[in-house]
C-alpha cells in the first residue's frame, strides 16, 4: 500500500512536469498566435508603466459602467 502511494506520487510528479511543459509552451504559442492574428498586442501593455499619470488615457479603458464605484468625491 505504501509503495503504491509513493508510485502514485511519483507518477503525479512526472505527469505534472509534462503538463507544465505543455502548458507553458502552449502559452508561448498562444501569445505569439494572438499577436499574429491581431487579437491582442501584448507589448502595448508595457506602456502602462511609461504613461501612468492619473489623467492619461488608459491602454485599455475600463468603461465607467464597469467601474464598481460611483464618482462621489469631486
Amino acid at each position: 500500500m505504501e509503495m503504491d502511494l509513493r508510485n502514485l506520487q511519483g507518477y503525479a510528479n512526472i505527469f505534472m512536469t509534462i503538463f507544465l511543459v505543455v502548458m507553458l509552451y502552449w502559452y508561448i504559442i498562444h501569445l505569439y498566435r494572438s499577436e499574429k492574428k491581431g487579437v491582442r498586442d501584448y507589448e502595448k501593455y508595457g506602456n502602462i508603466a511609461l504613461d501612468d499619470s492619473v489623467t492619461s488615457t488608459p491602454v485599455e479603458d475600463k468603461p465607467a459602467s464597469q467601474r464598481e464605484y460611483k464618482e462621489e468625491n469631486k
Partner: protein
Amino acid sequence: MFFHWLEKNPFFFAAAISIVISFAGLIEIVPNFAKSGKPLVDLKPRTVLELAGKNVYMKDNCMSCHSQMIRPFKSETDRYGDYSLSGEYAYDRPFLWGSKRTGPDLHRIGNYRSTDWHENHMWDPPAIVPGSIMPAYKHQFTNIADIETAYAEAVTVKNAFHTPYGPEFKTTRAAWDAHRPKVLADAKAIADNMKNKDVKEAVANGEVPEVVALIAYLNSLK
C-alpha cells in the same frame, strides 16, 4: 481563449494563481502526512521537564546554530552517531532540525555528553572547547523554567494529537499540582550531578532553573 479570459478577469486570475501554487503542497505534502508522522515503536514522549527544556532551547533559539538532523553520510554518523529516522521526531512539535551548523549537531548529544559537561559548557563554552564562539548562557542558571507551560503543552498534545501521555495528564490545575512533584524530582536528579550553588538552591526551593530543564532535554536527545 482560455488564456484571454484569464488575463482579463482579476478575480479568476487570482483564483488561477491560487490553484497553481497549491498543486505542490497537495501532491507533495498531503499524501505522506499519515506515514511521515508515525512514531518509532518504542518512542516515548518527552517528560514535562524535558519539554520545559525544549522550550528553553526554543526561547534561546539554539537552532540558530545547532541542527538536530544527522544525515546518512559516513562522515556524519562517525561524528554524531546513527543517522536520524523520521519516526524519532514523531512527537516533536515543532521540529527542531535547524538549518545551520555554526555548532555541531545535537540530535544524539545525550549519548556522548553528560550533565556536568553541559553545566560547565553553558557557563563558559570557550573554557571547555578552546576556540568556541558560542556565547555563555549564564542567565539560564538563574532564570526559572516555565514547567507549568510545559505541562500544559503535554496535556494539549495528548488531547489533540493522542501523544501517549499517561492518564494523570489532565487539563485541570489540580492534575498539574499533583504532577509537579514528579517534575521537581526529575530536576533534582539532574541538579545532583551539578555543582552550581544557585541551581542547587533553587531546586531545593522547588524551582527549576532553565539550565536544569535544558540539560534534561539535551540528555534525552539520543
